[in-house]
């Protein structure tokens, strides 16, 4: 059944939606992906650039057409000129030696008509006589892609009914809604066998399981990709990255066992954020889908988009990318919508923190400080004991909260939120780290009336799981009524981030992205560590 599913996926895919799985298949065969295009005018015929296990430089152009085969007219009208660029234009990329010749591949999820094959052979004959282009053009067609996918199978694809069910559910989704994250987590966990307590698996099997999970995740997200649902793709890819690190940490894998899949997912993630920016820049409004009922959801959408764009801005800074018009677009979008945000519950905190760090780096005003102060004030007010409209804990995402609204006929959530918070301590520590003593003093009495909670997964690799269902520490803190400022400062400047697993520590921006998807992992300790990496604390 899974073979048929993959065939079905491949036949319905477009270039964008098979880009991710194709890259994961290359990664699983030992290729190092050095570039994934964002389908802009800059691609110069090369959608993917990779280095083969033997060191050969490879460039890939991904193409799909209407109908089962690429016909000669489609070839002449739409593809030939791009293939010319693919083969003849040098690869200019910081990770690639200048003037290094490359192998060129036309990758399609269709077959190729005979006249097209002949045309390619003719072109190859000419190219072989010219040294820089001597490798000519090779093709990877539908059948070869299916074979690549089949090589990953070998009984490692999900066998549990739950995982298969999750895969089918997402594969059949129309891609316009949200990714069912618990299902995606179940699919990946089932494929990686993360919760299996049986015998240790050989390294080779662990590596193949990871490649399978990465491919399956890409296939599961393909309809979201087809629909151009960038935010949901970002969520799914963030979850995949988290699980890649969980697998690597749990089995103490060498870097060469997971690095390729990780890099592909991270590059795709960056690409999707860039594509989201392109769309946001082109749009004159944020209304999506059926417009009349959309006004209720506009602010939440703006909050997510501003959060993700802030992360993109921070990512570009972390990558030390030269400032260009992209950064101006990010700034313009965040400026336009930062007053139209919604704090629907504590699961929104990571989006606001992303904006906080972005503004701090880019605006130079006190806006960022005010943002944190106002958030903390909101939590202290709304979540005081006995409150009639407390904010839900981060375990409740936006849609779950809205579904329970009486106006939509929902039943109240059977969980008490008054007198509790998971984000307040993190926000208080940020205030202290900015030396906003008067604000901290003013909010302290209300802060002490709330119980502050966090879950600390043990062992640490379980931080990356959607839910740590087996163990860990549930910590509930009643703050002392009186506290010395210096003692609070000492706590607020503890930046060791002890609960964080090792590998994610090299990727603070990805950790922030993870928190947007896993808001329940946001604790004061994690935020202090992130602030040390992304923020400007006042020592």
């Amino acid at each position: 059944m899974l073979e048929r599913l993959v065939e079905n996926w491949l036949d319905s895919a477009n270039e964008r939606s098979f880009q991710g799985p194709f890259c994961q298949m290359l990664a699983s065969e030992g290729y190092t992906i050095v570039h994934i295009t964002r389908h802009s005018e800059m691609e110069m015929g090369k959608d993917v650039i990779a280095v083969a296990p033997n060191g050969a430089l490879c460039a890939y152009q991904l193409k799909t057409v209407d109908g089962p085969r690429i016909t000669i007219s489609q070839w002449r009208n739409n593809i030939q000129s791009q293939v010319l660029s693919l083969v003849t234009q040098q690869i200019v990329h910081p990770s690639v030696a200048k003037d290094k010749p490359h192998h060129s591949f036309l990758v399609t999820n269709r077959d190729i008509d005979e006249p097209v094959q002949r045309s390619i052979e003719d072109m190859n004959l000419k190219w072989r006589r010219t040294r820089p282009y001597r490798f000519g053009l090779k093709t990877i067609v539908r059948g070869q892609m299916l074979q690549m996918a089949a090589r990953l199978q070998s009984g490692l694809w999900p066998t549990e009914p739950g995982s298969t069910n999750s895969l089918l559910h997402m594969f059949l989704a129309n891609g316009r809604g949200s990714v069912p994250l618990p299902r995606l987590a179940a699919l990946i966990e089932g494929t990686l066998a993360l919760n299996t307590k049986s015998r240790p698996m050989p390294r080779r099997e662990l590596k193949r399981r990871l490649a399978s999970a990465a491919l399956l995740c890409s296939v599961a997200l393909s309809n979201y990709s087809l629909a151009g649902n960038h935010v949901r793709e970002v969520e799914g890819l963030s979850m995949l990255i988290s699980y890649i690190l969980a697998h690597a940490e749990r089995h103490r894998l060498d870097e060469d066992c997971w690095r390729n899949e990780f890099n592909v997912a991270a590059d795709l993630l960056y690409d999707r954020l860039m594509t989201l920016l392109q769309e946001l820049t082109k749009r004159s409004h944020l209304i999506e889908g059926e417009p009349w009922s959309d006004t209720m959801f506009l602010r939440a959408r703006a909050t997510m988009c501003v959060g993700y764009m802030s992360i993109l801005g921070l990512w570009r800074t972390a990558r030390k990318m030269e400032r260009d018009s992209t950064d101006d677009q990010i700034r313009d979008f965040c400026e336009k919508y930062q007053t139209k945000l919604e704090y629907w519950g504590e699961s929104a905190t990571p989006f606001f923190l992303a904006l906080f760090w972005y503004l701090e780096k880019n605006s130079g005003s006190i806006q960022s400080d005010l943002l944190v102060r106002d958030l903390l004030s909101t939590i202290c007010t709304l979540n005081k004991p006995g409150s009639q409209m407390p904010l839900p804990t981060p375990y409740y995402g936006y849609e779950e909260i809205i579904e329970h609204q009486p106006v939509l006929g929902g039943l109240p959530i059977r969980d008490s939120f008054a007198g509790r918070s998971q984000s307040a301590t993190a926000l208080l520590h940020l205030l202290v780290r900015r030396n906003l003593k008067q604000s901290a003093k003013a909010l302290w009495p209300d802060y002490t009336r709330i119980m502050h909670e966090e879950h600390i997964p043990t062992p640490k690799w379980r931080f990356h799981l959607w839910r740590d269902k087996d163990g860990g520490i549930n910590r509930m803190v009643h703050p002392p009524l009186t506290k010395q400022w210096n003692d609070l400062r000492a706590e607020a400047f503890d930046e060791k981030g002890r609960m964080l697993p090792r590998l994610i520590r090299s990727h603070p921006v990805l950790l922030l992205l993870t928190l947007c998807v896993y808001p329940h992992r946001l604790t004061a300790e994690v935020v202090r560590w992130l602030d040390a990496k992304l923020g400007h604390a006042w020592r």
Partner: protein
Amino acid sequence: MLPDFPDLKASLNERIIAPRMLAVEVSRMGPFAESPHMIIHEGGLNSINQVVHEDGSIDRSALARVEIKVKQDLRELENATPEAAAAMLDKVAGEMGDKMLKRNMEKLHAILEAADRGIDLRGKPLTADAVLDVWRGMLIRFDDKGVPQMPTMIAHPDTMKKLLQILEAAKGDDGFRRRYNQMIQDKKDEWHVREASRKLVG
């Protein structure tokens, strides 16, 4: 299999049966019925709960499983009216509530014992002043309007009946009323001092 209606049943469960069972369960939990209902989303039975108190002391405990086993003859259920079926579920929920009450009382008792907060009347009869002494040793909260939030009293039904009679009779005693009002005033002062101490200093 026979035709089933899982989605409809899940909806019925969520909207009618579970809230009803919870209401019955909670109604049997006595003073603990007023406790907030918190869902623990992670960790489960193998997790450690760590409570850090205002004074910095830390309590550690594990979650405890409270369960009841139900054996239901489905032939009996087949012949039951919806009201009778609901009564069966109420019985189950009630038993669960009783078990939760028992478990919580044991836990409360253990905490009080450990904290040495027991008051021994040493054979003397229970009096209104003895109750006053208990209140004197407790934290009494006041609402925004200054109304005391008196602690919940838990006792055996016979003892409770007697206690209420004693307190009712003491209402007519001017001396007791004066001592009671003084206790409340002291507690209010204590509360104000406590609330005023919520500050960051330095």
